[in-house]
């Protein structure tokens, strides 16, 4: 196993409690930051670390922090995005449930860097029980002097709160999240202004993913340069990957960026291979929004080089032959899987989750779902496949927020790499009967 920075102690009994967490070196980053660093030097360390946003976009965290406006006399806020809703992603839930204090520690240290007196952890409503775990951790942090007035006898005071959502994927988009936190519908805002200038209640705000904020802890403890030594190229550090689907060992894995995809799928230290020794058919590597890749392109790039778990390697070849690391939601499909049906579950998802503000997304996602349903029902035509392509191309880039792209990309990629499957559904509707169709298509015997 590679280096672990976040989940080093995830199996230590009682690590969810303050005393055990503290015994294992917890809250050292707060001590170090408050006693030996200035907010500016802390931002510098994060810049040096090369840390990139772990929610999906991969934007450099230090740079995002340096954009925060600091008008005198105006409050600034740190908001943690714990809305984790991207299909295939469950790493933040794992981290918060197992090691809640790591997030709380990261919130305090990061807030010091940003000069935020209050911070909010916005967590999806379905994780109500995780919110209670976090609230307990926050209570313990107050009781032990890590939160509240004049922390460690310094001028720095800080309050941290958990805010609960109520079921809306769109609230993972940072401006929709802020709307929701203000007690409104989760409709994304038009940018600019960006949250760094006008965010929560119109005040300068930084919104970071759970894993990003947790990663600040080892960065402060070890120094930005040491963190940047881990990983590969511009993909520094470790990444939590949520592995699911047809694998022997689904779960959350922390890996050093740069691990070969093949090793990740087949090694017993990680996914442990495909269930039942079947053949790999396709992988969605970074959550439902990123392009699906067939087995040959996820294991090797179009140039024939081994594909690595890094921002650059997964992106190699653009969307023609590559994909994205995204949120690290790694969904593995074996050779019995219907790509058309899988895409239908994605398109239904995006239709359900579109906030309805922008016409291309509101109408387009519903249209795509209906056409896929028609094809799966055996009433599709070849023109429908072209129509799907046409619709997705007219959503991309034409909406206020990236949900439009997130809905369009999976459709484009499925057709790009698996067009023959769509055509087979259309040409041989008599054969469609859930997966049986796919046994026939792939010359397989039903298990």
């Amino acid at each position, binding site marked *: 196993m590679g280096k672990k920075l976040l989940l080093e102690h995830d199996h230590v009994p009682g690590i969810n409690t303050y005393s055990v967490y503290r015994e294992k070196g917890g809250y050292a980053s707060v001590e170090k930051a408050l006693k030996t660093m200035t907010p500016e030097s802390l931002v510098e360390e994060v810049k040096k670390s090369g840390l990139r946003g772990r929610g999906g976009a991969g934007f450099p965290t230090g740079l995002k922090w340096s954009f925060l406006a600091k008008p005198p006399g105006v409050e600034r806020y740190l908001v943690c995005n714990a809305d984790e809703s991207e299909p295939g*992603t469950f790493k933040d*839930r794992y981290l918060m449930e197992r090691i809640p204090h790591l997030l709380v520690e990261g919130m305090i240290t990061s807030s010091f860097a940003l000069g935020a007196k209050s911070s909010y952890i916005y967590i999806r409503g379905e994780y109500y029980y995780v919110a209670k775990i976090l609230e307990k951790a926050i209570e313990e942090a107050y009781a032990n002097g890590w939160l509240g007035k004049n922390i460690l006898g310094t001028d720095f005071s800080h309050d941290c709160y958990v805010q609960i959502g109520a079921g809306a994927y769109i609230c993972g988009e940072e401006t929709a999240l802020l709307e929701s936190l203000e*007690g409104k519908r*989760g409709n994304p805002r038009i940018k600019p202004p960006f949250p760094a200038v006008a965010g929560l209640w119109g005040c300068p705000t930084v919104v970071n993913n759970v894993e990003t904020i947790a990663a600040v802890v080892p960065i402060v403890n070890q120094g930005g340069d040491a963190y940047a030594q881990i990983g590969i190229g511009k993909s520094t550090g470790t990444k939590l990957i949520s592995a699911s689907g047809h694998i022997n060992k689904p779960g959350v894995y922390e890996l050093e960026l740069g691990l070969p995809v093949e090793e990740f799928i087949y090694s017993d230290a990680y996914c442990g291979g495909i269930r039942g020794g079947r053949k790999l058919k396709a992988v969605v590597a970074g959550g439902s929004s990123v392009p699906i890749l067939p087995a040959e392109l996820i294991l090797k790039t179009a140039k024939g080089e081994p594909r690595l778990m890094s921002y650059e390697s997964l992106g190699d070849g653009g969307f023609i032959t590559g994909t994205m690391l995204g949120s690290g939601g790694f969904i593995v499909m074996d050779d019995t899987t219907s790509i058309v049906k899988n895409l239908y579950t994605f398109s239904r998802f995006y239709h359900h989750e579109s906030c309805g503000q922008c016409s291309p997304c509101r109408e387009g996602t519903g249209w795509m779902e209906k056409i896929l349903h028609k094809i799966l029902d055996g009433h599709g035509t070849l023109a429908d496949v072209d129509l799907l392509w046409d619709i997705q191309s007219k959503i991309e880039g034409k909406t206020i927020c990236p949900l439009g792209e997130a809905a369009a990309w999976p459709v484009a990629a499925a057709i790009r790499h698996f067009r023959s499957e769509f055509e087979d559904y259309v040409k041989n509707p008599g054969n469609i009967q859930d997966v049986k169709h796919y046994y026939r298509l792939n010359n397989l015997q039903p298990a």
Partner: protein
Amino acid sequence: MAANKKIEFGEETLALCHKLMKRYPEGKQKSALIPILHLAQAEFDGWLSPEVMEYVASILKIQAIEAFEVASFYSMFNLKPVGKCQLEICRTSSCWLMGAEDVVRHLEKRLGIKEGETTPDGMFTIKTVECLGSCGTAPMMQVGADYYENLTLEKVDQLLDTMKSSGKRKSYTDVAETRPL
């Protein structure tokens, strides 16, 4: 709920509402709307009637329409009565790959209702939902605050039996003290 039952939080819940409202700067109390709607749904029979939304709005000193706007946007808020146990089965990609459709079909057969319907005794509602962040432990369903993971049809049967014999409503806000890791 009896038609003329007074809609008012118990003392403890009301105190919690006021505590929640203190988490935000002066004048930004509307931010407590979603957390308080959750409390209201749990306290008033698992759904938000127009009267309940009006009551929540009055606590926050906002218009009732503002509460309705929010309640109607989020999938966890029920605007119609539902069963005491709302069985929410995730159906997105990973859960579908691992057999979520079998779970839904089994529930429909066992309870004699279709997805979206409630059993005549008001005990169970079947609802399919989108990704709940439990992809590595698929298939799964959420009932109240509880996640039931790595489901098999036998496990589903046992859960139904347990819930039915307890006869209690399961709310999102009822979080067990400890959850085995």
